[in-house]
C-alpha cells in the first residue's frame, strides 16, 4: 500500500466507522453466499470518554500498532504476534486477584469491567529497543480496580502475570524467558492516575497481539513493564521478581523508567525512532519519563535513577 507511511493524513481522511462496518457486513454477506470467508466480527464501539491525560500527538495507525509487537509468547519476530495471537482464547477470561487484598478471588473479565467507565488515553509508548509509538488506548485506572478489591496497608507492591498457554502460544515451548511473564509496580506507581488497565485501542476491544483482553499500560516506563494478557494480580509486601530483570538484571532494572541519560548497556537511550516514518524517519530525542515527568517525577524524589534503572 503506497503512501501508508505518509503522515499528512487528516482525521477527515479516516474511513468513518459506520462506512467500514457496512463494508464488513457486505463481506460477511458475501461469505455467507460462498463468495469468500473474509467477513470478520463487527466490533462494538467502546465509546470511551476523552481524557486530559491524552497527548495531542498524532497516533500511529491501527495497522502499525497491531503489526509491530513484542509478545514473546508468540515468537520473537515483530510480526509474530499478529500472525499467531489469533489462537489465544480470550473469552472466557479469568483474573486471579490474591495476596494482601480484602476481596481475593477469581474475577471474570465481566466482573472486572462492571462499574468501570472507559476512557481513551492517547499515550506515548517507548520501547526499551529505542522505538516508539503513540497509541490511543482505551481503559480504566488500575487504582479503580485496586480500590475495589481493597488493597491492604501492608501491601507495598503489585505483581502481575501473563497467561501461559503452550497450546495457544507457540513461543512458550521455545524458552526465551522464564514463563509466566511477570511484572510489578511499587504501590504508588500502581495507584498513579496515569497507570491504566487497557482493554482496547482505537475505541475497539484490545486486539489479541496487543495483549487482549486486558493489559497494563505505564506510559513513563519502557514498554516491557506494560504486561499483556493479565491473568493474575497480587498485592505483595516484597518487590516481586520481574521477567526481564530475571533474564538479565544488568540490562533491565525493576523500575525501567524511560530515561535518556541512562543507556542500555548495549545501546543508547538518548533518542528513539517513531514507528511509521518509513525509510526517512528522523530520530527524535527521548524525554525523561517519556515526557510524563510533571506527573510522575515526584514519585522518585531523592532516588538515584542511575542505580535504580
Amino acid at each position: 500500500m503506497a503512501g501508508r507511511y505518509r503522515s499528512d493524513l487528516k482525521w477527515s481522511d479516516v474511513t468513518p466507522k459506520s462506512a467500514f462496518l457496512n463494508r464488513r457486513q457486505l463481506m460477511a454477506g458475501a461469505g455467507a453466499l460462498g463468495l469468500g470467508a473474509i467477513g470478520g466480527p463487527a466490533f462494538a464501539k467502546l465509546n470511551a470518554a476523552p481524557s486530559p491525560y491524552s497527548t495531542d500527538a498524532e497516533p500511529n495507525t491501527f495497522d502499525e500498532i497491531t503489526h509491530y509487537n513484542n509478545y514473546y509468547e508468540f515468537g520473537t519476530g515483530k510480526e509474530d504476534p499478529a500472525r499467531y495471537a489469533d489462537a489465544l482464547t480470550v473469552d472466557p477470561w479469568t483474573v486471579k486477584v490474591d495476596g494482601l487484598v480484602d476481596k481475593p478471588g477469581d474475577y471474570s473479565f465481566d466482573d472486572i469491567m462492571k462499574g468501570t467507565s472507559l476512557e481513551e488515553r492517547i499515550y506515548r509508548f517507548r520501547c526499551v529497543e529505542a522505538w516508539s509509538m503513540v497509541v490511543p488506548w482505551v481503559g480504566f485506572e488500575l487504582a479503580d480496580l485496586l480500590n475495589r478489591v481493597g488493597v491492604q496497608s501492608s501491601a507495598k507492591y503489585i505483581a502481575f502475570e501473563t497467561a501461559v498457554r503452550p497450546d495457544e502460544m507457540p513461543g512458550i515451548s521455545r524458552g526465551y524467558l522464564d514463563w509466566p511473564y511477570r511484572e510489578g509496580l511499587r504501590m504508588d506507581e500502581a495507584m498513579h492516575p496515569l497507570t491504566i488497565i487497557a482493554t482496547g485501542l482505537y475505541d475497539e476491544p484490545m486486539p489479541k497481539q496487543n495483549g487482549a483482553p486486558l493489559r497494563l499500560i505505564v506510559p513513563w516506563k519502557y514498554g516491557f513493564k506494560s504486561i499483556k494478557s493479565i491473568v493474575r494480580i497480587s498485592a505483595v509486601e516484597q518487590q516481586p521478581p520481574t521477567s526481564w530483570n530475571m533474564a538479565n538484571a544488568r540490562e533491565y532494572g525493576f523500575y525501567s523508567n524511560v530515561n535518556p541519560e541512562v543507556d542500555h548497556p548495549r545501546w543508547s537511550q538518548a533518542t528513539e525512532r517513531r514507528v511509521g516514518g518509513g525509510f526517512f524517519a528522523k530520530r527524535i530525542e527521548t524525554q525523561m519519563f517519556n515526557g510524563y515527568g510533571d506527573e510522575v517525577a515526584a514519585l522518585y524524589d531523592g532516588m538515584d535513577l542511575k542505580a535504580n534503572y
Partner: protein
Amino acid sequence: MTAAQRINTTLRRLPTWPIYVVLGLVPFWWLYLGFTGGLGVEPIRELEHRLGELGLQVLIASLLVTPLRRFTGVTLIRFRRALGLMVFYLISLHLLVWAVLDVQIPSQMWADIVKRPYITIGMVGFLLLIPLALTSNTFSIRRMGPKAWQRLHRLVYLSVILGAVHWVMVVKGWQREPLVYLGIVMAVLALRLPAPKRFQLASRGA
C-alpha cells in the same frame, strides 16, 4: 566418469555473472518493498536485518565450497569469488543502512562503535572483509603468490564468527535464530579441520 566429475563438467559450463546480478539486485528489490509497505511498519530495521542476514548466509555458502569438494569431489570454486564479493557488497550496505538510516548522527555512530561491544565486534568483522575484497582478483593472487593469498584469506574464518556473534549479541535475550546460525558457522568451520588419518587415506584414493 564419476558422478562428481559429471557434475563438475556441467558446472564448468555455467557462467558466474548471474550471482552478481541476482545478489546485486536483491537489496534494490527490498528497497522497493520498503517504499511500498512490504517490509512492515519499521522498514529501516527490517532492511538492516535482512542485509546482515543475507550477507551471513552467502558467507556461509562460500565457506561450504571447500568442504563440499573435500567430501564429495564436487567443486564450486569458480563461483566462490563472486560469492565472497557479494558478501562484501551486502555487508557494506548493511553498514550503510545502519549509519545513514538507523543511527543518523555521526557522533553517535562513533560512540556506538567504541562503546557497544556488539557494534565493535560487527565492525571488526567488516574491517576484516576489506583486504579480502580488495585481493579477490586474479592479479592479486598472482602478485601475492597462492600461499600468502591463502594465508590472508583465512581472516574470513574470524570474520564469519564475529558476524554470527554480533547477531547473537544484538537481540534481546537468547533467541533461537542467531544461535542456530552461530552453530552452523562453527560446524562449517569444523568441516575444515584436519581429518582423522583414516579419512585422509580414503579421500586421496578418490
